[in-house]
């Protein structure tokens, strides 16, 4: 039964991505990509990767779709008719695919219990010993925040990099092109201008519903943040949900109100604070005599130390991700605002 679900989902994935390739309207392509992400998340659930599914749903189907839509609102959504079948890209893609197909024939069977991956010492350690020496039930969180804590530090840094990158790129002044002035004079406004608004002005129903929902969204974010030790979830997913709450707020009530609540400068502070909190836990463990990110020394009892360390670094991840997603959203929305006619 489970195989059939998997196979059905995977065939849908292929159909979805082929559709992504062929549709000409970029809005449609974006929505299809979002659907592909969501299908992928479902597939991850059947493959037992609940944490990954959660993240993929929040990020692939959520945040990236918002980013794509924001971009399309600014750059227009029609694609020029594609040229004929391009031979060289096709050959390159086929040869890459061929290399992987070549590899799969010797690859261990999926789901088998005797593959090198399942028999590896690492797997044994993570599955059998980590609940004892780390003391939390969710092994993914243990591996993520403790055994491979440095990867996660790097990941937080990547998010930080993207956020300051987007702010840097989108804060460059918009220099008008000569063609643009011509367009303006001839009365033809670029299509982007009409869509470049953030916030829907006078809609009673969304206002009321979002007022009811947003507190719960934020509450849910905290639940995901602090429940990550016991179930799927953790700093990253929580950060994305938290940011989604604020983004929803500013879509409904307008960007300027959100910016009053959380000015860009404050967001930047949080952005930096999260990374520093993560690194700070590492430095604290160094000062206490352990290696970098060695949580055992944070408390007299190693397991308690691990708990404390994981709690703090996950918090750091959550703060940075929230701030980064908000900063990226501010970057895009600010651009739209600068170009749109008026916003509220």
């Amino acid at each position, binding site marked *: 039964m489970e195989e059939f679900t998997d196979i059905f989902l995977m065939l849908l994935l292929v159909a979805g991505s082929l559709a992504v390739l062929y549709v000409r309207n970029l809005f449609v392509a974006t929505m299809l990509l979002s659907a592909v992400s969501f299908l992928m998340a479902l597939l991850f659930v059947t493959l037992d990767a*609940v944490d*990954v599914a959660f993240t993929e749903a929040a990020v692939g189907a959520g945040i990236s779709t918002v980013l794509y839509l924001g971009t399309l609102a600014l750059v227009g959504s029609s694609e020029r008719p594609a040229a004929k079948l391009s031979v060289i890209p096709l050959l390159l893609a086929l040869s890459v695919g061929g290399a992987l197909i070549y590899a799969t024939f010797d690859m261990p069977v999926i789901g*088998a219990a005797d593959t090198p991956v399942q028999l590896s010492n690492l797997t044994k350690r993570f599955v059998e010993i980590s609940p004892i020496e780390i003391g939390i*039930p969710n092994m993914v969180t243990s*591996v993520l925040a403790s055994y491979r804590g440095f990867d996660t530090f790097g990941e937080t840094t990547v998010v930080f990099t993207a956020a300051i990158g987007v702010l840097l790129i989108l804060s460059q002044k918009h*220099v008008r092109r000569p063609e643009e002035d011509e367009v303006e004079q001839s009365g033809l406004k670029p299509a982007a201008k009409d869509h470049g608004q953030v916030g829907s002005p006078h809609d009673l129903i969304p206002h009321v519903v979002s007022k009811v929902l947003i507190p719960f969204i934020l509450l849910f974010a905290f639940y995901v943040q602090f429940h990550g030790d016991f179930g799927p979830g953790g700093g990253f997913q929580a950060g994305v949900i938290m940011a989604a709450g604020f983004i929803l707020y500013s879509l409904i009530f307008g960007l300027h109100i959100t910016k009053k609540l959380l000015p860009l400068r404050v967001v930047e502070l949080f952005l930096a604070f999260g990374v520093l909190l993560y690194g700070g836990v590492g430095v604290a463990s160094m000062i206490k005599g352990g290696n970098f990110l060695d949580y055992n020394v944070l408390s007299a009892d190693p397991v308690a130390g691990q708990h404390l360390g994981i709690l703090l670094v996950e918090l750091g991840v959550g703060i940075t991700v929230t701030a980064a997603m908000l900063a990226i959203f501010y970057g895009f929305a600010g651009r739209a605002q600068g170009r749109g006619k008026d916003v509220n």
Partner: protein
Amino acid sequence: MFFDHFNYWIVVILMMIGLYTVMSRSNLVKKMIGLSLFQISVFLLYISMGKIEGGTAPIVSNAPDVIYSNPLPHVLILTAIVVGVATTALGLALIVRIKEAFGSVDEEEILSNEDNL
């Protein structure tokens, strides 16, 4: 036998579609979409490695005789997803600026635009 490597074949197909989209389409947004597709396919490659037949999610439960799937690929892919969205955000920000600077997000139009700079 046929289903032993089925996931991997799907990975390959998605990967080829993604790569082909990146390389053959001249619209920059479409290129980014293809790139996202390409990255998503790799996530499936990793997650399939960690699956174990009859296993459950790697969260300790009280039920007896549970087999847990391997948590390590999950951790790696969590990181990779984050990296993916970071790349997407940067790429899209660049596209917005390119649209402003060149008046187009089509690679060929931009190239012809660059020539008569």
